[in-house]
């Protein structure tokens, strides 16, 4: 369970801009939550706060009962590395590393041995259907393959939550649908997923969605 209470986020000090206003949100285990809203509504900021990339200006976040807002940067980073998997719209793969090296990177920072890193990376790449592309670099992959690599990287440390920021935004329709199916499949295996989307069709496939507007949760819907 991830719990956000009274979360606000303000950017800037000279002319501060508050982008999130008092967000309260509970994300139970095994939930598949969609976040929808217009551009600039605060969706990505909320996602990054859930994923401990951004620090909230005020409010508390609890990860499985632990108050992470009081932790220092190093401890928050370690939790983020172990518990959170990120998938971005623009894939965010490291261009000079191969597919398998990109995927095993989170394990590198958890000081997992080289042998175990490789084994786990290969296993997850097989799961996402990329075991034939392990030695290729991102510039040798298609958009769909890049996104599947990013998903593999997000899953390799068996995180308790997968956060995806418009994962199909840069993909064609068919490839996007395939990625959506993959997310549904992952949810089916018990992974908690929070996903931002502009796509109403995808939003309709997600069991629970919240609509954000102007930094506030406007409404909640269940499929």
């Amino acid at each position, binding site marked *: 369970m991830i719990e956000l209470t009274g979360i606000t986020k303000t950017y800037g000090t000279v002319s501060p801009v508050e982008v999130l206003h008092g967000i309260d949100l509970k994300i139970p285990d095994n939930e598949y939550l969609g976040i929808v809203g217009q551009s600039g509504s605060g969706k990505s900021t909320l996602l990054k706060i859930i994923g401990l990339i951004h620090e909230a200006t005020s409010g508390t976040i609890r990860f499985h009962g632990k108050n992470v807002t009081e932790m220092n940067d190093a401890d928050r980073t370690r939790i983020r590395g172990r518990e959170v998997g990120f998938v971005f719209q623009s894939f965010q793969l490291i261009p000079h590393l191969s597919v398998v090296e990109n995927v095993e990177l989170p394990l590198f920072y*958890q000081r997992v041995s*080289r042998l175990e890193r490789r084994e786990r990376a290969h296993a997850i790449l097989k799961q996402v259907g990329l075991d034939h592309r392990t030695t290729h670099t991102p510039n040798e992959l298609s958009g769909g393959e890049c996104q599947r690599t990013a998903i593999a990287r997000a899953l390799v440390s068996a995180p308790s939550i997968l956060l995806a920021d418009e994962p199909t935004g840069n993909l064609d329709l068919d490839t996007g649908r395939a990625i959506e199916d993959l997310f549904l499949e992952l949810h089916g295996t018990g992974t908690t997923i929070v996903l931002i989307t502009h796509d109403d069709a995808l939003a309709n496939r997600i069991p629970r969605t919240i609509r954000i507007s102007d930094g506030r949760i406007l409404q909640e819907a269940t499929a």
Partner: protein
Amino acid sequence: MTWILQLVRDSIRDIVRHKLRSILALLGIVFGIAAVITILGIGEGAQRTVLKEMSVMGLRNIIAESVKPKDAGPKARRGYTRKDYGLTHRDLQQIDAALPEGSSTYIARILPETVSFGSKTFEPPIFAVPAAYYEIFNAEVEEGILHNHVHERDRMLVCVANREFADDLEVPGGVLGERIKIGLNYFQFIGVIDIPIHKGKPYVYVPLATADNYYSTSNFDRRESGSREFTKVEIGQIVAQVPTEALVPAGVSLIEKTLKANHRKDDYKLTVPLQLLESKQKTQRVLNIVLVAIALISLIVGGIGIMNIMLANVSERMGEIGIRRAIGATQRDIVLQFLVESTTLTLLGGVLGCILGVLAVPFSAQFIGFEGAITPAAVIVSLLVSAIVGLGFGIFPALNAAKLDPGLVLTQY
């Protein structure tokens, strides 16, 4: 440790990926380290050469020599001057008495004669020495023998010479057995020696006892101007040898005090090989420090180049840094990554610089005129310096990289 090795491996891959940029960044380090190795190698070689040169003069020796003063002397008359100068037996007795226990003294006379061989005439310094003289100055026999106590006892008319004088005579089968005329007396060659203290100029040596028997300490010369000069030099050289190098300063002080008390004019000089060595070593050390400081300037410039490249690296890789932070890299991990990259780069430059320096030392030393010497310490110090440059100039870009806000960076990149 394996984690650091992984970072080093990744750094090397990065260097290979950007070959031209890496080479240009490295150049300052390569030349700086090569300069340090070369300077230290030449300096070490110079030290060893100086030590060798001074050692052959005997580091426990204190050498006092008679020197002809410039003034006319107390008994000058028109057309006729008399000069009594230099070291005396009285000096010798007092020096003997004053020196620490275990010290020895040896005297030598310098005969103001010319040497004739066939129709040729030569004017080498002619030293009348005791047999022990050769040992205290590390002479080695090249041909024949040295004169010994029998030659001394019997006041035999024998001589030895160094290679330079032997070659000057141009005798096809060598000089052994040949006779030369010193003043009015004929001496037979019994040996040719290598005596380092007199290397480079021709010298002849005869037994002291023979010289005392056949040659007066007084000498009468007619000058070109027509006037006449009468000189008397009792002893040409006194060599005092103290038991240990530590006693040399005290020995010098005693001898100086004795000679100052006994002599009113500047008719002697002191040569102290140990002091000469220390002086040369001090000069060498100062020169080394100055030259190494200049080489360090090159390293500083190289380090600034490295810092510049690393800052550019960080700018180019902001997106990568953001994603690494997002997936679990702490700020410490990022600092370590970039420090390992900068240090790997400078160590690579250090290795190349060492290779260049090791190749340059024998070449440069030959150019200057003596052997160079590369010590393992110089190589280790140079590599350590390159690592320090990498750490020192890499820390600022590394800290900059670590401070990046991953959330903001991921939004922008």
